[in-house]
Protein backbone atom coordinates (compact mmCIF):
# COMPACT_ATOMS: atom_id res chain seq x y z
CA UNK A 1 0.00 0.00 0.00
CA UNK A 2 1.17 3.50 -0.71
CA UNK A 3 0.91 6.51 1.58
CA UNK A 4 -2.37 7.49 -0.04
CA UNK A 5 -3.85 4.11 0.88
CA UNK A 6 -4.16 2.88 -2.69
CA UNK A 7 -2.95 -0.59 -3.59
CA UNK A 8 -0.51 -1.03 -6.46
CA UNK A 9 -3.36 -2.55 -8.40
CA UNK A 10 -5.50 0.57 -7.85
CA UNK A 11 -2.64 2.77 -9.04
CA UNK A 12 -1.98 0.59 -12.07
CA UNK A 13 -5.63 0.66 -13.05
CA UNK A 14 -5.85 4.42 -12.51
CA UNK A 15 -2.86 4.86 -14.79
CA UNK A 16 -4.64 2.83 -17.49
CA UNK A 17 -8.00 4.60 -17.22
CA UNK A 18 -9.29 6.16 -20.45
CA UNK A 19 -10.77 9.51 -21.40
CA UNK A 20 -14.60 9.64 -21.58
CA UNK A 21 -14.37 9.18 -25.38
CA UNK A 22 -12.03 6.21 -25.02
CA UNK A 23 -14.45 4.71 -22.52
CA UNK A 24 -17.35 5.21 -24.96
CA UNK A 25 -15.42 3.21 -27.57
CA UNK A 26 -15.08 0.36 -25.06
CA UNK A 27 -18.81 0.39 -24.32
CA UNK A 28 -19.68 0.02 -27.99
CA UNK A 29 -17.07 -2.70 -28.61
CA UNK A 30 -18.45 -4.69 -25.69
CA UNK A 31 -22.03 -4.44 -27.02
CA UNK A 32 -20.96 -5.43 -30.53
CA UNK A 33 -18.99 -8.35 -29.10
CA UNK A 34 -22.27 -9.62 -27.69
CA UNK A 35 -21.68 -8.77 -24.08
CA UNK A 36 -24.02 -6.53 -22.13
CA UNK A 37 -22.43 -3.14 -21.51
CA UNK A 38 -23.37 -3.40 -17.86
CA UNK A 39 -21.69 -6.77 -17.40
CA UNK A 40 -18.64 -7.75 -15.40
CA UNK A 41 -15.76 -5.46 -16.30
CA UNK A 42 -13.26 -8.29 -16.15
CA UNK A 43 -15.36 -10.54 -18.42
CA UNK A 44 -13.67 -11.66 -21.61
CA UNK A 45 -14.94 -10.64 -25.02
CA UNK A 46 -13.45 -10.36 -28.47
CA UNK A 47 -14.66 -8.22 -31.35
CA UNK A 48 -13.44 -8.43 -34.94
CA UNK A 49 -12.28 -5.00 -36.10
CA UNK A 50 -11.79 -1.67 -34.36
CA UNK A 51 -14.07 1.05 -33.03
CA UNK A 52 -13.38 4.54 -34.29
CA UNK A 53 -15.25 7.66 -35.37
CA UNK A 54 -16.56 8.70 -38.76
CA UNK A 55 -17.82 12.14 -39.71
CA UNK A 56 -21.47 12.25 -40.76
CA UNK A 57 -20.80 15.39 -42.76
CA UNK A 58 -17.57 14.72 -44.72
CA UNK A 59 -17.14 10.91 -44.11
CA UNK A 60 -13.56 11.27 -42.77
CA UNK A 61 -12.56 8.59 -40.24
CA UNK A 62 -10.36 9.22 -37.19
CA UNK A 63 -8.54 7.51 -34.35
CA UNK A 64 -7.72 8.07 -31.45
CA UNK A 65 -11.14 9.50 -30.47
CA UNK A 66 -11.73 13.25 -30.43
CA UNK A 67 -14.71 15.60 -30.08
CA UNK A 68 -14.71 17.14 -33.58
CA UNK A 69 -13.98 15.90 -37.10
CA UNK A 70 -10.30 16.58 -37.90
CA UNK A 71 -11.15 17.32 -41.55
CA UNK A 72 -14.13 19.67 -41.38
CA UNK A 73 -14.34 20.34 -37.61
CA UNK A 74 -18.02 19.38 -37.56
CA UNK A 75 -19.72 17.93 -34.50
CA UNK A 76 -21.16 15.03 -36.48
CA UNK A 77 -18.68 12.33 -35.50
CA UNK A 78 -20.35 8.95 -35.08
CA UNK A 79 -18.96 5.75 -33.60
CA UNK A 80 -18.39 2.99 -36.13
CA UNK A 81 -17.00 -0.51 -36.17
CA UNK A 82 -14.53 -1.09 -39.00
CA UNK A 83 -13.61 -4.70 -39.81
CA UNK A 84 -10.77 -3.88 -42.23
CA UNK A 85 -7.10 -4.75 -41.84
CA UNK A 86 -3.82 -2.95 -42.15
CA UNK A 87 -0.10 -3.33 -42.52
CA UNK A 88 2.75 -3.15 -40.04
CA UNK A 89 4.67 0.15 -40.10
CA UNK A 90 7.07 -0.68 -37.27
CA UNK A 91 7.29 -2.73 -34.09
CA UNK A 92 8.96 -2.92 -30.72
CA UNK A 93 9.40 -5.53 -28.05
CA UNK A 94 8.78 -3.78 -24.74
CA UNK A 95 10.91 -4.79 -21.72
CA UNK A 96 10.42 -1.80 -19.41
CA UNK A 97 7.00 -0.50 -18.44
CA UNK A 98 5.98 2.42 -16.27
CA UNK A 99 3.07 0.37 -14.98
CA UNK A 100 3.93 -2.21 -12.36
CA UNK A 101 1.12 -4.45 -13.53
CA UNK A 102 3.09 -5.32 -16.65
CA UNK A 103 6.11 -6.44 -14.67
CA UNK A 104 4.09 -8.33 -12.11
CA UNK A 105 1.93 -10.13 -14.66
CA UNK A 106 4.74 -12.30 -15.98
CA UNK A 107 5.63 -9.84 -18.70
CA UNK A 108 9.33 -9.90 -17.85
CA UNK A 109 9.53 -13.53 -18.96
CA UNK A 110 7.68 -12.80 -22.20
CA UNK A 111 7.80 -9.13 -23.18
CA UNK A 112 4.86 -7.73 -25.10
CA UNK A 113 5.24 -7.09 -28.81
CA UNK A 114 3.76 -3.73 -29.75
CA UNK A 115 3.08 -2.75 -33.34
CA UNK A 116 2.34 0.51 -35.12
CA UNK A 117 -0.13 -0.25 -37.88
CA UNK A 118 -1.31 1.71 -40.88
CA UNK A 119 -5.00 0.88 -41.30
CA UNK A 120 -6.21 0.42 -44.88
CA UNK A 121 -8.67 3.26 -44.31
CA UNK A 122 -6.05 5.73 -43.06
CA UNK A 123 -5.59 5.96 -39.29
CA UNK A 124 -2.39 4.80 -37.58
CA UNK A 125 -2.95 2.54 -34.55
CA UNK A 126 -0.83 1.05 -31.80
CA UNK A 127 -1.70 -2.62 -31.27
CA UNK A 128 -0.66 -5.63 -29.25
CA UNK A 129 0.96 -7.58 -32.06
CA UNK A 130 1.22 -11.25 -32.91
CA UNK A 131 4.93 -12.18 -32.84
CA UNK A 132 4.66 -13.91 -36.21
CA UNK A 133 3.89 -10.68 -38.10
CA UNK A 134 6.71 -8.40 -36.99
CA UNK A 135 8.12 -7.80 -40.48
CA UNK A 136 7.48 -4.27 -41.76
CA UNK A 137 4.73 -4.39 -44.37
CA UNK A 138 3.06 -7.56 -43.00
CA UNK A 139 -0.69 -7.72 -43.56
CA UNK A 140 -2.66 -7.98 -40.36
CA UNK A 141 -6.21 -8.49 -39.18
CA UNK A 142 -7.46 -6.39 -36.25
CA UNK A 143 -9.48 -7.33 -33.19
CA UNK A 144 -10.64 -5.51 -30.05
CA UNK A 145 -10.63 -7.02 -26.56
CA UNK A 146 -10.54 -5.83 -22.93
CA UNK A 147 -7.35 -5.26 -20.93
CA UNK A 148 -7.02 -5.84 -17.18
CA UNK A 149 -9.12 -2.73 -16.46
CA UNK A 150 -11.98 -3.83 -18.74
CA UNK A 151 -11.22 -1.05 -21.25
CA UNK A 152 -10.67 -1.96 -24.89
CA UNK A 153 -7.36 -2.44 -26.65
CA UNK A 154 -6.60 -3.40 -30.26
CA UNK A 155 -4.89 -6.66 -31.19
CA UNK A 156 -3.15 -7.25 -34.53
CA UNK A 157 -2.62 -10.78 -35.89
CA UNK A 158 -1.70 -12.55 -39.11
CA UNK A 159 -4.61 -12.51 -41.60
CA UNK A 160 -6.27 -15.84 -42.38
CA UNK A 161 -8.36 -18.61 -40.89
CA UNK A 162 -6.34 -18.75 -37.67
CA UNK A 163 -6.66 -15.01 -37.02
CA UNK A 164 -9.44 -15.26 -34.43
CA UNK A 165 -7.58 -17.97 -32.52
CA UNK A 166 -4.36 -15.91 -32.43
CA UNK A 167 -6.30 -12.85 -31.29
CA UNK A 168 -8.03 -14.88 -28.57
CA UNK A 169 -4.71 -16.14 -27.27
CA UNK A 170 -3.26 -12.61 -27.01
CA UNK A 171 -6.51 -11.38 -25.43
CA UNK A 172 -6.27 -14.10 -22.77
CA UNK A 173 -2.74 -13.00 -21.80
CA UNK A 174 -3.89 -9.39 -21.45
CA UNK A 175 -6.21 -10.23 -18.57
CA UNK A 176 -4.10 -13.00 -17.07
CA UNK A 177 -4.03 -12.75 -13.30
CA UNK A 178 -0.78 -13.07 -11.46
CA UNK A 179 -0.43 -14.61 -8.02
CA UNK A 180 2.18 -12.05 -6.98
CA UNK A 181 -0.03 -9.17 -7.94
CA UNK A 182 -2.41 -7.61 -5.46
Amino acid sequence: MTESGESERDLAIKQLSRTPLGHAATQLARILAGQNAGGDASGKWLMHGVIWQQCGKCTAVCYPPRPLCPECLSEQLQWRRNAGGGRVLSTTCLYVSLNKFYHLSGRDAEPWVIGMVSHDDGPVLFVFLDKSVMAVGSRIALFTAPDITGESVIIGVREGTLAIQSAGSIAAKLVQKNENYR
Partner: protein
Amino acid sequence: MKVAGKLQRSHQDIVLASPVSVPYKRKTEQPASYFIGTALREMLAAAGLEKPECDGLMVSSYSLAPDTVVSLAETFDISLNWAEQVQLGGASGIVGVRRAARAVAAGDAEVIACIGGDTFIPDQFAGLLGRFSNFTIDGVTPYGCGGASVPFAMLTRAYMETYAVAREDFGRLCILQRKNAQVYQQALLRESLTMEAYLSARPVAEPLGLFDCVMPCAGAEGVLVMQEGRAQALGVPYVRLLASAERHNASRGMAMPLTFGWRDFRDDLYHAASLRPEAMDIVQVYDDYPVMALLQLEELGLCQVGQASRFLTEDSFIPQGRVVHLNTSGGQLSAGQAGFAGGFMGLTEAVRQLTDQALGNQLAEVRNALISGFGMINYNRGLCAAAAIIERAEL
Protein backbone atom coordinates in the same frame (compact mmCIF):
# COMPACT_ATOMS: atom_id res chain seq x y z
CA MET B 1 -1.33 30.64 -46.49
CA LYS B 2 2.14 31.66 -45.56
CA VAL B 3 4.68 29.22 -46.96
CA ALA B 4 6.58 27.57 -44.11
CA GLY B 5 9.49 29.69 -42.99
CA LYS B 6 9.08 32.39 -45.64
CA LEU B 7 9.28 35.95 -44.40
CA GLN B 8 11.58 34.68 -41.67
CA ARG B 9 13.12 37.80 -40.18
CA SER B 10 16.40 37.95 -38.38
CA HIS B 11 16.59 39.12 -34.77
CA GLN B 12 18.23 42.54 -34.98
CA ASP B 13 20.35 43.57 -32.00
CA ILE B 14 18.90 40.91 -29.69
CA VAL B 15 21.40 39.09 -27.50
CA LEU B 16 21.53 36.20 -25.04
CA ALA B 17 23.54 36.48 -21.82
CA SER B 18 24.13 34.91 -18.41
CA PRO B 19 23.65 31.23 -19.27
CA VAL B 20 22.87 29.15 -16.19
CA SER B 21 22.65 25.38 -15.71
CA VAL B 22 21.42 24.50 -12.22
CA PRO B 23 23.18 21.18 -11.40
CA TYR B 24 20.99 18.17 -12.12
CA LYS B 25 19.84 15.88 -9.31
CA ARG B 26 18.59 12.29 -9.46
CA LYS B 27 16.85 12.65 -6.12
CA THR B 28 15.20 15.71 -4.67
CA GLU B 29 12.29 16.78 -2.52
CA GLN B 30 12.31 20.29 -3.94
CA PRO B 31 9.51 21.47 -6.26
CA ALA B 32 10.07 22.79 -9.79
CA SER B 33 9.91 26.38 -8.51
CA TYR B 34 13.09 25.74 -6.48
CA PHE B 35 15.08 24.89 -9.60
CA ILE B 36 13.55 27.68 -11.71
CA GLY B 37 14.10 30.24 -8.95
CA THR B 38 17.69 29.11 -8.46
CA ALA B 39 18.34 29.67 -12.17
CA LEU B 40 16.77 33.13 -11.92
CA ARG B 41 18.89 34.10 -8.91
CA GLU B 42 22.09 32.95 -10.60
CA MET B 43 21.43 34.65 -13.92
CA LEU B 44 20.58 37.96 -12.26
CA ALA B 45 23.75 37.73 -10.18
CA ALA B 46 25.82 36.94 -13.28
CA ALA B 47 24.42 39.98 -15.09
CA GLY B 48 24.66 42.27 -12.06
CA LEU B 49 20.93 42.97 -12.26
CA GLU B 50 18.57 43.73 -9.40
CA LYS B 51 15.37 41.67 -9.39
CA PRO B 52 13.06 44.57 -10.45
CA GLU B 53 15.22 45.14 -13.55
CA CYS B 54 14.10 41.78 -14.93
CA ASP B 55 10.68 42.75 -16.30
CA GLY B 56 9.88 39.64 -18.34
CA LEU B 57 9.72 35.96 -17.44
CA MET B 58 9.32 32.98 -19.73
CA VAL B 59 9.21 29.52 -18.18
CA SER B 60 8.79 25.96 -19.42
CA SER B 61 8.02 23.19 -16.95
CA TYR B 62 5.75 20.14 -16.86
CA SER B 63 6.04 19.68 -13.10
CA LEU B 64 5.32 23.29 -12.11
CA ALA B 65 1.54 22.64 -12.18
CA PRO B 66 -0.73 23.65 -10.54
CA ASP B 67 1.47 26.78 -10.52
CA THR B 68 2.08 28.79 -13.69
CA VAL B 69 4.56 31.45 -14.76
CA VAL B 70 2.54 34.09 -12.95
CA SER B 71 2.47 32.03 -9.76
CA LEU B 72 6.24 32.34 -9.93
CA ALA B 73 5.97 36.13 -10.19
CA GLU B 74 4.23 36.09 -6.82
CA THR B 75 6.44 33.33 -5.38
CA PHE B 76 9.56 35.33 -6.25
CA ASP B 77 7.88 38.69 -5.52
CA ILE B 78 8.55 40.30 -8.86
CA SER B 79 6.35 42.55 -11.04
CA LEU B 80 6.45 41.82 -14.76
CA ASN B 81 5.62 43.67 -17.98
CA TRP B 82 5.61 40.40 -19.90
CA ALA B 83 4.98 36.77 -18.90
CA GLU B 84 4.98 33.69 -21.08
CA GLN B 85 4.79 29.96 -20.53
CA VAL B 86 5.92 27.77 -23.40
CA GLN B 87 4.86 24.13 -23.00
CA LEU B 88 6.45 22.65 -26.09
CA GLY B 89 8.69 20.04 -24.49
CA GLY B 90 12.14 19.88 -26.08
CA ALA B 91 11.32 22.79 -28.41
CA SER B 92 10.52 25.09 -25.45
CA GLY B 93 13.96 26.66 -25.06
CA ILE B 94 14.32 27.86 -28.63
CA VAL B 95 10.66 28.81 -29.02
CA GLY B 96 10.72 30.61 -25.66
CA VAL B 97 13.84 32.61 -26.48
CA ARG B 98 12.34 33.38 -29.89
CA ARG B 99 9.16 34.74 -28.24
CA ALA B 100 11.24 36.74 -25.80
CA ALA B 101 13.42 38.17 -28.58
CA ARG B 102 10.33 39.43 -30.44
CA ALA B 103 8.95 40.96 -27.24
CA VAL B 104 12.20 42.76 -26.45
CA ALA B 105 12.47 43.99 -30.05
CA ALA B 106 8.91 45.35 -29.82
CA GLY B 107 9.69 47.10 -26.56
CA ASP B 108 7.23 45.07 -24.49
CA ALA B 109 9.98 44.16 -22.01
CA GLU B 110 13.61 45.09 -21.48
CA VAL B 111 15.19 42.07 -19.82
CA ILE B 112 13.53 38.66 -20.05
CA ALA B 113 14.63 35.62 -18.07
CA CYS B 114 13.97 32.44 -20.09
CA ILE B 115 14.07 29.36 -17.89
CA GLY B 116 13.23 25.70 -18.33
CA GLY B 117 13.13 23.71 -15.12
CA ASP B 118 11.57 20.64 -13.60
CA THR B 119 11.69 18.54 -10.52
CA PHE B 120 11.76 14.74 -10.62
CA ILE B 121 9.58 12.66 -8.33
CA PRO B 122 9.63 9.05 -9.56
CA ASP B 123 6.11 8.15 -8.39
CA GLN B 124 4.60 11.13 -10.20
CA PHE B 125 6.79 10.73 -13.26
CA ALA B 126 5.22 7.49 -14.47
CA GLY B 127 1.75 8.97 -14.13
CA LEU B 128 2.69 12.17 -15.96
CA LEU B 129 4.28 10.35 -18.89
CA GLY B 130 1.47 7.86 -19.26
CA ARG B 131 -1.14 10.64 -19.24
CA PHE B 132 0.78 13.12 -21.38
CA SER B 133 -2.13 13.82 -23.76
CA ASN B 134 -5.62 12.53 -24.52
CA PHE B 135 -4.35 10.57 -27.53
CA THR B 136 -1.64 9.02 -25.32
CA ILE B 137 -4.22 8.03 -22.68
CA ASP B 138 -6.49 6.24 -25.15
CA GLY B 139 -4.09 5.15 -27.86
CA VAL B 140 -0.57 4.59 -26.48
CA THR B 141 -0.41 4.03 -22.71
CA PRO B 142 -2.77 1.00 -22.81
CA TYR B 143 -0.19 -0.76 -25.00
CA GLY B 144 2.36 -1.52 -22.29
CA CYS B 145 2.83 1.86 -20.60
CA GLY B 146 6.23 2.29 -22.23
CA GLY B 147 6.12 6.10 -22.36
CA ALA B 148 7.94 7.87 -25.21
CA SER B 149 10.19 4.84 -25.66
CA VAL B 150 7.42 3.08 -27.63
CA PRO B 151 6.97 5.71 -30.39
CA PHE B 152 10.75 6.27 -30.51
CA ALA B 153 11.44 2.54 -30.78
CA MET B 154 9.06 2.46 -33.76
CA LEU B 155 10.82 5.45 -35.32
CA THR B 156 14.29 4.01 -34.65
CA ARG B 157 13.43 0.71 -36.31
CA ALA B 158 11.87 2.47 -39.32
CA TYR B 159 14.96 4.71 -39.68
CA MET B 160 17.31 1.72 -39.42
CA GLU B 161 15.45 -0.21 -42.10
CA THR B 162 14.91 2.74 -44.44
CA TYR B 163 18.54 3.92 -44.43
CA ALA B 164 20.38 0.65 -43.60
CA VAL B 165 21.61 2.00 -40.26
CA ALA B 166 22.79 -0.39 -37.51
CA ARG B 167 22.78 -0.13 -33.72
CA GLU B 168 26.55 0.51 -33.83
CA ASP B 169 25.81 3.70 -35.78
CA PHE B 170 23.76 5.05 -32.86
CA GLY B 171 26.37 3.67 -30.47
CA ARG B 172 29.08 5.90 -31.95
CA LEU B 173 26.95 8.96 -31.24
CA CYS B 174 26.38 7.89 -27.63
CA ILE B 175 30.10 7.21 -27.13
CA LEU B 176 31.08 10.56 -28.69
CA GLN B 177 28.66 12.41 -26.45
CA ARG B 178 29.85 10.55 -23.36
CA LYS B 179 33.41 11.63 -24.17
CA ASN B 180 32.20 15.23 -24.30
CA ALA B 181 30.50 14.75 -20.93
CA GLN B 182 33.75 13.61 -19.32
CA VAL B 183 34.97 17.20 -19.35
CA TYR B 184 31.59 18.79 -18.57
CA GLN B 185 31.47 19.09 -14.82
CA GLN B 186 27.71 18.91 -14.43
CA ALA B 187 26.92 15.74 -16.42
CA LEU B 188 25.33 12.98 -14.33
CA LEU B 189 26.91 10.24 -16.47
CA ARG B 190 30.63 10.84 -17.02
CA GLU B 191 32.17 7.35 -16.99
CA SER B 192 33.33 6.25 -20.44
CA LEU B 193 31.03 4.14 -22.59
CA THR B 194 32.34 1.35 -24.82
CA MET B 195 30.64 -0.06 -27.89
CA GLU B 196 30.46 -3.43 -26.17
CA ALA B 197 28.67 -1.90 -23.18
CA TYR B 198 26.33 0.04 -25.48
CA LEU B 199 25.38 -3.03 -27.51
CA SER B 200 24.99 -5.38 -24.56
CA ALA B 201 22.99 -3.00 -22.35
CA ARG B 202 19.65 -4.31 -21.19
CA PRO B 203 16.86 -3.79 -23.71
CA VAL B 204 14.19 -1.17 -22.98
CA ALA B 205 12.03 -1.21 -26.12
CA GLU B 206 13.82 -2.94 -28.97
CA PRO B 207 15.83 -1.72 -30.77
CA LEU B 208 16.36 0.77 -27.92
CA GLY B 209 18.62 -0.26 -25.07
CA LEU B 210 19.49 1.43 -21.79
CA PHE B 211 22.06 3.83 -23.29
CA ASP B 212 19.62 5.04 -25.93
CA CYS B 213 17.42 6.47 -23.19
CA VAL B 214 17.94 9.62 -21.16
CA MET B 215 18.09 9.54 -17.37
CA PRO B 216 15.25 11.59 -15.90
CA CYS B 217 16.33 14.06 -13.23
CA ALA B 218 15.63 17.49 -11.72
CA GLY B 219 17.32 20.73 -12.74
CA ALA B 220 17.00 23.99 -14.65
CA GLU B 221 18.62 25.84 -17.53
CA GLY B 222 18.20 29.41 -18.68
CA VAL B 223 19.48 32.59 -20.31
CA LEU B 224 18.64 36.29 -20.29
CA VAL B 225 17.31 37.97 -23.45
CA MET B 226 17.87 41.71 -23.95
CA GLN B 227 18.94 44.41 -26.43
CA GLU B 228 22.62 44.47 -27.31
CA GLY B 229 22.97 48.00 -25.92
CA ARG B 230 21.65 46.87 -22.55
CA ALA B 231 24.14 44.01 -22.39
CA GLN B 232 26.95 46.39 -23.27
CA ALA B 233 25.86 48.82 -20.56
CA LEU B 234 25.86 45.95 -18.06
CA GLY B 235 29.26 44.80 -19.28
CA VAL B 236 28.02 41.23 -19.42
CA PRO B 237 29.35 38.72 -22.00
CA TYR B 238 26.73 37.93 -24.63
CA VAL B 239 26.04 36.28 -27.98
CA ARG B 240 23.93 37.61 -30.84
CA LEU B 241 20.73 35.78 -31.68
CA LEU B 242 20.83 35.82 -35.48
CA ALA B 243 17.78 33.80 -36.48
CA SER B 244 15.25 31.32 -35.19
CA ALA B 245 12.34 29.31 -36.54
CA GLU B 246 9.67 26.88 -35.44
CA ARG B 247 7.27 24.47 -37.14
CA HIS B 248 4.57 22.32 -35.57
CA ASN B 249 2.76 19.18 -36.75
CA ALA B 250 4.80 19.29 -39.96
CA SER B 251 4.43 15.55 -40.59
CA ARG B 252 0.62 15.51 -40.62
CA GLY B 253 -0.76 13.03 -43.12
CA MET B 254 2.36 10.83 -43.09
CA ALA B 255 1.84 7.34 -41.67
CA MET B 256 5.49 6.75 -40.67
CA PRO B 257 7.24 10.11 -40.91
CA LEU B 258 11.04 10.37 -40.98
CA THR B 259 10.96 14.16 -41.24
CA PHE B 260 9.57 16.55 -38.63
CA GLY B 261 9.72 20.15 -39.83
CA TRP B 262 13.29 21.48 -39.85
CA ARG B 263 13.68 21.08 -43.62
CA ASP B 264 10.58 23.25 -44.09
CA PHE B 265 12.33 26.29 -42.61
CA ARG B 266 16.05 25.60 -42.79
CA ASP B 267 16.80 27.58 -45.97
CA ASP B 268 15.10 30.64 -44.53
CA LEU B 269 16.81 30.16 -41.19
CA TYR B 270 20.27 30.11 -42.76
CA HIS B 271 19.31 32.99 -45.04
CA ALA B 272 18.13 35.10 -42.12
CA ALA B 273 21.41 34.38 -40.29
CA SER B 274 23.50 35.04 -43.44
CA LEU B 275 25.33 31.77 -42.73
CA ARG B 276 25.43 28.41 -44.46
CA PRO B 277 25.12 25.05 -42.67
CA GLU B 278 28.75 24.25 -43.56
CA ALA B 279 29.85 27.35 -41.62
CA MET B 280 28.56 26.06 -38.26
CA ASP B 281 31.26 25.52 -35.63
CA ILE B 282 29.00 24.07 -32.91
CA VAL B 283 25.82 22.08 -33.41
CA GLN B 284 23.61 21.24 -30.43
CA VAL B 285 20.80 18.91 -31.44
CA TYR B 286 18.06 17.56 -29.20
CA ASP B 287 19.02 14.02 -28.23
CA ASP B 288 16.17 12.47 -26.25
CA TYR B 289 16.92 9.38 -28.36
CA PRO B 290 19.93 8.98 -30.71
CA VAL B 291 17.75 8.68 -33.82
CA MET B 292 16.49 12.22 -33.27
CA ALA B 293 20.01 13.63 -33.15
CA LEU B 294 20.80 12.03 -36.51
CA LEU B 295 17.50 13.18 -38.06
CA GLN B 296 18.15 16.79 -37.01
CA LEU B 297 21.67 16.80 -38.46
CA GLU B 298 20.18 15.60 -41.75
CA GLU B 299 17.10 17.81 -41.86
CA LEU B 300 19.14 20.87 -40.94
CA GLY B 301 21.37 20.24 -43.94
CA LEU B 302 24.63 19.25 -42.22
CA CYS B 303 24.57 16.08 -44.35
CA GLN B 304 22.27 14.14 -46.67
CA VAL B 305 19.16 12.33 -45.46
CA GLY B 306 19.98 8.97 -43.88
CA GLN B 307 23.72 9.70 -43.93
CA ALA B 308 24.50 11.35 -40.57
CA SER B 309 25.96 8.28 -38.90
CA ARG B 310 28.48 7.88 -41.75
CA PHE B 311 30.18 11.09 -40.64
CA LEU B 312 30.31 10.06 -37.00
CA THR B 313 33.22 8.36 -35.28
CA GLU B 314 33.47 7.64 -31.58
CA ASP B 315 35.43 10.90 -31.30
CA SER B 316 33.99 13.39 -33.73
CA PHE B 317 31.40 14.45 -36.26
CA ILE B 318 33.10 15.31 -39.55
CA PRO B 319 30.63 16.14 -42.33
CA GLN B 320 32.30 17.22 -45.59
CA GLY B 321 35.77 16.86 -44.11
CA ARG B 322 35.28 19.56 -41.45
CA VAL B 323 35.01 18.88 -37.73
CA VAL B 324 31.76 20.15 -36.23
CA HIS B 325 31.53 20.23 -32.43
CA LEU B 326 28.41 18.20 -31.63
CA ASN B 327 26.46 18.22 -28.35
CA THR B 328 29.47 19.61 -26.54
CA SER B 329 28.29 18.98 -22.97
CA GLY B 330 27.37 15.36 -23.72
CA GLY B 331 23.72 16.05 -24.40
CA GLN B 332 20.85 14.71 -22.40
CA LEU B 333 22.09 11.17 -23.03
CA SER B 334 25.01 11.95 -20.67
CA ALA B 335 23.92 14.95 -18.61
CA GLY B 336 20.41 13.67 -17.88
CA GLN B 337 17.00 15.04 -18.86
CA ALA B 338 15.65 17.55 -16.39
CA GLY B 339 12.20 17.66 -17.97
CA PHE B 340 11.65 20.71 -20.16
CA ALA B 341 15.10 22.02 -19.13
CA GLY B 342 16.34 19.48 -21.69
CA GLY B 343 15.04 21.83 -24.37
CA PHE B 344 17.29 24.61 -23.05
CA MET B 345 20.47 22.61 -22.49
CA GLY B 346 21.93 23.01 -25.99
CA LEU B 347 21.20 26.71 -25.86
CA THR B 348 22.83 27.44 -22.49
CA GLU B 349 25.85 25.31 -23.38
CA ALA B 350 26.27 27.08 -26.75
CA VAL B 351 26.01 30.52 -25.12
CA ARG B 352 28.69 29.49 -22.58
CA GLN B 353 30.98 28.24 -25.37
CA LEU B 354 30.62 31.44 -27.41
CA THR B 355 31.25 33.66 -24.38
CA ASP B 356 34.22 31.62 -23.14
CA GLN B 357 32.42 30.62 -19.95
CA ALA B 358 32.28 26.85 -20.49
CA LEU B 359 32.23 24.61 -17.42
CA GLY B 360 35.44 22.65 -17.94
CA ASN B 361 34.97 21.94 -21.64
CA GLN B 362 35.81 25.24 -23.37
CA LEU B 363 36.44 24.90 -27.11
CA ALA B 364 38.93 27.11 -28.94
CA GLU B 365 38.08 29.24 -31.97
CA VAL B 366 34.35 28.76 -32.10
CA ARG B 367 32.37 31.61 -33.66
CA ASN B 368 28.81 30.39 -34.02
CA ALA B 369 26.36 27.66 -33.11
CA LEU B 370 23.25 26.00 -34.50
CA ILE B 371 20.85 24.75 -31.81
CA SER B 372 17.76 22.68 -32.42
CA GLY B 373 14.92 21.38 -30.31
CA PHE B 374 12.18 18.79 -30.67
CA GLY B 375 9.20 18.09 -28.50
CA MET B 376 5.77 16.80 -27.63
CA ILE B 377 4.99 13.19 -28.49
CA ASN B 378 1.24 13.76 -28.44
CA TYR B 379 0.50 10.36 -30.05
CA ASN B 380 2.98 8.56 -32.29
CA ARG B 381 5.40 11.35 -33.27
CA GLY B 382 7.00 14.54 -31.99
CA LEU B 383 5.11 17.62 -33.10
CA CYS B 384 7.36 20.61 -32.40
CA ALA B 385 10.57 21.37 -34.30
CA ALA B 386 12.61 24.52 -33.68
CA ALA B 387 16.10 25.82 -34.38
CA ALA B 388 18.19 28.93 -33.77
CA ILE B 389 21.57 30.29 -34.85
CA ILE B 390 23.71 32.37 -32.51
CA GLU B 391 27.04 34.13 -33.04
CA ARG B 392 29.91 35.26 -30.86
CA ALA B 393 29.94 39.01 -30.20
CA GLU B 394 33.36 40.57 -30.67
CA LEU B 395 33.75 42.91 -27.74
